[in-house]
């Protein structure tokens, strides 16, 4: 088995040279180019959907093989394909695959199918580039591409005025924050004179002398703002509820699970490495504190405001703001174990939040509204969807033995555990805030569950759930349960990824 893979890899590397390290991205770019073409020829959305999905699968397989054969390396000095980036790539591919899988059967999906899938494929490709980028230029461009594609995706929705509004808001805030990012990068470039992150004279190498250097600080804060926008950290979050509500549901899911994770990937690649490299300089402690405060505020605002929501998509938006807050704990703690927890939580978040959005999409397709009150008595009208939704919500709330619990368990414990395997109470307050928040979150999740299971429905008539949706939901359910009960495989991947990340220091 293994030697077959090896021979394949050898052949490819002869063919592509360094290019092999960006092979998965390239495959997706092919998809991005072909799917509109195919659409023009066949006039069938399904065709391009299938194509995109297949190519995504191929690229995923390739990635897996490359991971399996440990063919890690750098392409063109810009893109480093290592355990970390490959893992993130898999995540993005999973998100993209899920989105494509459900979009075809979804009612809100635009009629410009070709472009739609091209955009998704391109966005995923860009995310993957970002995941493996080692250079500020590459990161910036990649992130911008993702942003621009997502603006378009948000706008691409069938006859709903809200989508255009959402797109404009998204655009303006997004552009603002990319401006901030760019300005910040310019400052960093100014003080370090380099755009490469790693390497002997890269930014990270010089960072330890930066304490008290205020242009550097401004630069960092600028970038924090820019990528805080991507991960929708308070106070850079305000676009997300509107956008998630306005965009077509698969796209909302795509943004909530995909581009948010890209933001985290960038933040990890830049700040985590940077400040860990700084050991315990004054500056790094300050930024840890900043991230801690951001995390606390983010999760609190997200959860508390979610309580008062009546639109399920807005509620999910706020809850994913809160989830971002949880993951930010990693940046406050900056320990390897915490990173493992963070990465793991990103994956579980994909299955549970993605699953929730899939369910919402399915129900919208079946003709149900977006208001929580529309979900009354869902258990009778769509038992499977309701049960799945309950699982996803409880998982988000962190009820064992579901995926959300296990990842939160590791994430929160990471905030208390020291690398040596002792206890460090520095971030106890943060953990307290976090657990109280997940208790609060239980309140609004339970409200939805109550609506579905306890309230009486207005009508008894069953809701038709499309096959694609059923499959997707089933997959997410399996993911939620398996990742909760048997997370070993993924955990191992995450810890190797964390090692790779810390190896960059």
């Amino acid at each position, binding site marked *: 088995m293994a030697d077959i893979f090896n021979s394949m890899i050898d052949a490819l590397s002869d063919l592509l040279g360094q290019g092999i390290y960006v092979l998965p991205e390239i495959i997706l770019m092919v998809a991005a180019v072909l799917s509109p073409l195919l659409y023009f020829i066949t006039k069938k959305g399904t065709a391009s959907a299938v194509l995109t999905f297949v190519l995504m699968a191929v690229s995923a397989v390739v990635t897996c093989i490359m991971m399996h054969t440990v063919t890690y390396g750098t392409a063109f000095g810009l893109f480093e394909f290592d355990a970390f980036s490959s893992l993130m790539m898999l995540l993005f591919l999973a998100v993209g695959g899920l989105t494509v899988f459900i979009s075809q059967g979804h009612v809100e999906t635009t009629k410009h199918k070709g472009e739609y899938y091209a955009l998704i494929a391109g966005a995923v490709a860009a995310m993957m580039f970002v995941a493996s980028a080692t250079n500020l230029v590459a990161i910036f461009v990649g992130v911008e591409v993702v942003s621009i594609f997502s603006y378009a995706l948000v706008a691409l929705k069938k006859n709903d005025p809200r989508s255009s509004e959402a797109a404009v808001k998204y655009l303006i805030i997004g552009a603002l924050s990319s401006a901030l990012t760019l300005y910040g990068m310019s400052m960093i470039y100014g003080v370090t004179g380099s755009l490469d992150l790693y390497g002997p004279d890269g930014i990270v190498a010089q960072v330890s002398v930066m304490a008290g250097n205020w242009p550097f600080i401004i630069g960092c804060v600028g970038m924090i703002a820019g990528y805080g926008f991507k991960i929708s950290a308070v106070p850079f979050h305000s676009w997300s509820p509107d956008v998630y509500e306005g965009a077509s549901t698969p796209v909302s899911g795509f943004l909530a699970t995909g581009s948010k994770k890209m933001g985290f990937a960038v933040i990890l690649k830049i700040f985590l490495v940077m400040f860990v490299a700084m050991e315990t300089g004054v500056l790094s402690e300050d930024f840890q504190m900043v991230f801690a405060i951001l995390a606390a505020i983010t999760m609190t605002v997200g959860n508390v405001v979610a309580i008062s929501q009546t639109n399920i998509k807005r509620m999910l938006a706020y809850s994913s703001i809160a989830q971002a807050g949880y993951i930010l704990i990693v940046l406050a703690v900056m320990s390897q*174990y915490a990173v*493992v927890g963070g990465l793991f939580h990103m994956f579980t978040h994909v299955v549970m939040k993605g699953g929730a959005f899939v369910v919402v999409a399915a129900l919208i397709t079946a003709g149900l509204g977006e208001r929580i009150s529309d979900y009354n008595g869902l258990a009778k009208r769509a038992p499977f969807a309701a049960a799945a939704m309950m699982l996803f919500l*409880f998982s988000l709330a962190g*009820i*064992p*033995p579901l995926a959300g*619990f296990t990842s939160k*368990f*590791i994430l*929160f*414990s990471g905030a*208390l*555990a*020291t690398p*040596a*395997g*002792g*206890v460090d*109470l520095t971030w*106890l307050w943060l*953990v*307290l805030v976090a*657990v*109280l928040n*997940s*208790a609060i979150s*239980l*309140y609004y999740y*339970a*409200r939805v569950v*109550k609506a579905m*299971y*306890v309230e009486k429905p207005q009508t008894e008539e069953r809701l038709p759930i499309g096959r694609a949706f059923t499959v997707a939901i089933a997959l997410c359910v399996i993911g939620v349960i398996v990742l909760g009960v*048997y*997370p*070993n495989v993924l*955990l*191992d991947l*995450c*810890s190797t990824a*964390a090692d790779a990340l810390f190896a960059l220091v």
Partner: protein
Amino acid sequence: MDVPILSLLVLLPLIGAVLTLFMGGARTKYAKVVAAVFTAAALVLSLYVMFMPSGDLANLTENYTWIESAGIKMSIIFGIDGLSILMVFLTALLMFLVVVFSWNEEDRPNYFHALLLAMEVGLMGVYMAQDYFLFYIMWEVTLIPMFFLISWYGGPRRHYSAIKFFIYTHVASLIMLIGIFGLVFGTSGGDFAFAAVANAGGLSEAMQIFLFGLLFFGFAVKMPVPPFHTWLPDAHVEAPTAGSVLLAGVMLKMGSYGIIRVCLDADIFALAMPVWQPVMIGLGIFAMVYGVYACIAQNDLKKMVAYSSISHMGMVLVGMGCMSEIGIEFAIFQMFAHGLISAALFMVCGLAGHNFGTRDMRLLGGMAGKAPRFALFMMIAFMASLGLPGLMGFIAEFGLLYGLWEYLASVDLMPIILLGLLYMLLTAGYYIWAMQKTLFGKLTDKIDLEHAHDIGNIECVVLAVLAVLIALFGILPGLATDYIMPFVSSIVNAGGLLI
């Protein structure tokens, strides 16, 4: 052991739960049969374990590595000892009785029994888990079935109560979770097995005190100890009878079980225990007296009984707080006794509401003539609960109060025992008063007497079983203490006791 008995104890209800869950539609009427079969199987199994020579209990331990990655190790370890076995038996017994008791449940019986069985999974797990991760998971697993039991089959204010119960106890268990983190990473550095943590030990005193506090809070809310108790009366009043029985019978015990299992483990908390001892005793006495007074003020039978659970669990806390051989012995005995007695109490109260249409003592009266069976069992349950000799309650209360006395004598605060006496007197007071208002005197005309009827045969049998057991263990307490003493002495040898 070839047959993984302990895993079976968890798996049987799980399978049963899944089966019953899918017995919708035409097969609904068989749901209860399936539930009965599986709970009975679990009961038989637990009895088998109970009657095994106590030496063999240790051999039952099962240990499977579960998650081992990123420097942490969680295992599925089921073990059983003198403390667990009683709780496991109690769980299995009450589950079976409850299933039989709610034989006539008409409203979606498949879900109802599935929930019961799901709860049994969690409870069994909690009482047998030997790994903090597993323990916590099982601990939380018990929440959801209860949440649905209340919000589906509960009374008028069920939504409020269900959510309150869910969130309140969840917060507590999350605080406890932080304690577990600190405990595990502070000692074994990532191995969540009880044994690993205990063997590693070596927490600083400050850390011990702090973690003890976190864990104790988590457990105390479950017990519940005033002032963290207000979820309980609401939950009880709204829950269906089956729910209340399990809630009071076994779920409250999870708290005290946790305290004995974790907080009183000298290998971990040797330095923290003396610091927290006065707090535990004080809170316990407060709970006793406070609960009693709260009882006196109630008009709803069920609410009164709910508060009585609070005061009885207060006694358990006192016993554990004594941290003496006798204290812990009778704390455990009281857990067991209260498990059986409160089950009977809540069944009786539930029947009052069901058969007479109300549980309000102001509306009832002279029911003894109308419903003699009801009167008989109400009297037995109440007498047992107020500590009448010859029934279980007395043994437990005598032992616990004596343990308290010993402690007070050791710290030279003997007069405080008067509070214990007050507790006994007032307990008798509100029970007797409740009986007078409900059973005796003028036959009420405030309820619909045509439809008021006596206990049916099935319920009668269930209650009779409970009554017999209560009397049996009251007359021959050795049956239970024989399991308890080895466990207690093992703690003693571990140096876990102060007196």
